[in-house]
């Protein structure tokens, strides 16, 4: 297992990219790890492309910027086009295959295709493709795990929307089981 995992979540603004990153960050924090979370900000927040760097580490974190991700979550085509070649050899790429029709061309990385957006709309949880793909992430990235998901979810789902906890768990489970 690597001591430091550099994760890049990328997609459209509104897909819950920052939220998914925050969940993974909080999960790491509550497990006693060092973590950092850095969003793109500015016009991206208002409907363009959005991404966030999340680092989960056994050691104190230097730069919070993930330019060479171990793990890439691509939820739209521009994100895959932009970051595919930045993933470190032996890294992992998670692709929302509902929205991205092309295949990953790299052969030195592990690729997981999950029709997250399609699954979400099938199950009537349209806004939770982000958490479906994150469920898959927790399963396949050995430095992460599916344990202790309740506490971090409770932290990232705002106090006003605690009724959405269950549906977020359902989405994570869907991705995990896919």
């Amino acid at each position, binding site marked *: 297992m690597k001591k430091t995992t550099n994760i890049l979540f990328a997609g459209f603004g509104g897909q819950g990219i920052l939220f998914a990153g*925050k969940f993974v*960050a*909080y999960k790491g*924090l509550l497990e006693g790890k*060092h*973590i*950092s*979370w*850095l*969003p793109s*900000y*500015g016009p991206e927040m208002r409907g363009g492309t959005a991404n966030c760097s999340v680092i989960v580490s056994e050691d104190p*974190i*230097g*730069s*919070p*910027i993930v*330019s060479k991700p171990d793990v890439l979550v691509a939820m739209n085509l521009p994100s895959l086009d932009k970051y595919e070649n930045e993933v470190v050899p032996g890294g992992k790429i998670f692709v929302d295959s509902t929205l991205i029709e092309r295949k990953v061309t790299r052969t030195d990385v592990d690729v997981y295709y999950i029709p997250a957006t399609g699954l979400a709309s099938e199950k009537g949880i349209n806004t939770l493709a982000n958490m479906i793909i994150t469920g898959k992430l927790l399963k396949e990235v050995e430095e992460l795990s599916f344990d202790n998901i309740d506490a971090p979810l409770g*932290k990232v789902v705002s106090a006003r929307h605690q009724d959405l906890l269950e549906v977020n768990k359902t989405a994570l489970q869907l991705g995990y089981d896919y």
Partner: protein
Amino acid sequence: MGEKVLMKGNEAIAEAAIRAGCLHYFGYPITPQTEIAAYMAKRMPKVGGVFLQAESEIAAINMVLGVAAAGKRVMTSSSSPGVSLKSEGMSYISGSDVPALVVNVQRGGPGLGGIQPSQSDYFQAVKGGSHGDYKRIVLAPASVQEMASLTTKAFDLADKYSILTMILADGTMGQMMEPVELETTEPVKYEKPWATTGTKMQRKHNIVNSLYLKPEELEKKNFERFAKYKTIEENEVMYEEYLMDDAEICVVSFGITSRVAKNAIVEARAKGIKVGMIRPITLWPFPTEVLNKAADKCKAFISVEMNMGQMIEDVKLAIECKKPVHLCCRVGGMIPSPEEVLAKIEEVNEGGER
């Protein structure tokens, strides 16, 4: 200290300020520091404080001067272009010798520039930016934890010396989230016998002012102020040394670039290059002495910053040009990568580029 929570740097500043007893915030929104104002708008009414979105940055800083004159803890925050607008008021605060905090979450410039992170207001923060002979204490956080703890420190220093303090952060520090432990102890209270709180007909009027028409008086004021600044220079320098024990190359960097540089230093060490870092935490007073001592051991310095080379001048002054100082920079909202910093370390180690 309490439990560790995940917060944005901007939010950490706001919460730490409230916990430090700052119940007055005046500001005007600008990316990338708006979360400070948003947080204050939400929290201040709940703690009996004042949040006021002024009609402009100029109005906000003058409201700060007013509250500071009344002896209450007060702050404003902005980003680069907005801080320029505040600079007149900041000079008046310095000339009135009242304590206050200004936060600058820097973005690229000059002009309206961009909204991505930068450190190009270094000169403005530590060399002037406002008119007149004055200094202000400038603190440069390099983590969300420091965004909180240096805010507490900034209020204490402001009150202790009756001086304007500044947090010089950047868009990355403001936007990123990291675990932070917030202060849970009661803020230190400082006596402010000069404050304009009403005489109740029991004492002479206190006057807070920066106007001295008699040059003899104004000169005396300036001398007194600089005596105070000397005390600050002697007592309040803060810095972090990283792997400096056997270092032959010394990186100097503050804020976000010091984090990037740490990655590069770890990589360089793995390649057998003896490199370390001195990270100024106070940009004024600048850690002159430790740098000067390092110049007796190290063969070269590298200043890593997000401007065209501003702090590098202070590094050269500090080491009295005893050793070469190289610059590694990106500007305009670009952030140097660890690979770029590593390449510069390797180049300097091989004796190239002067």
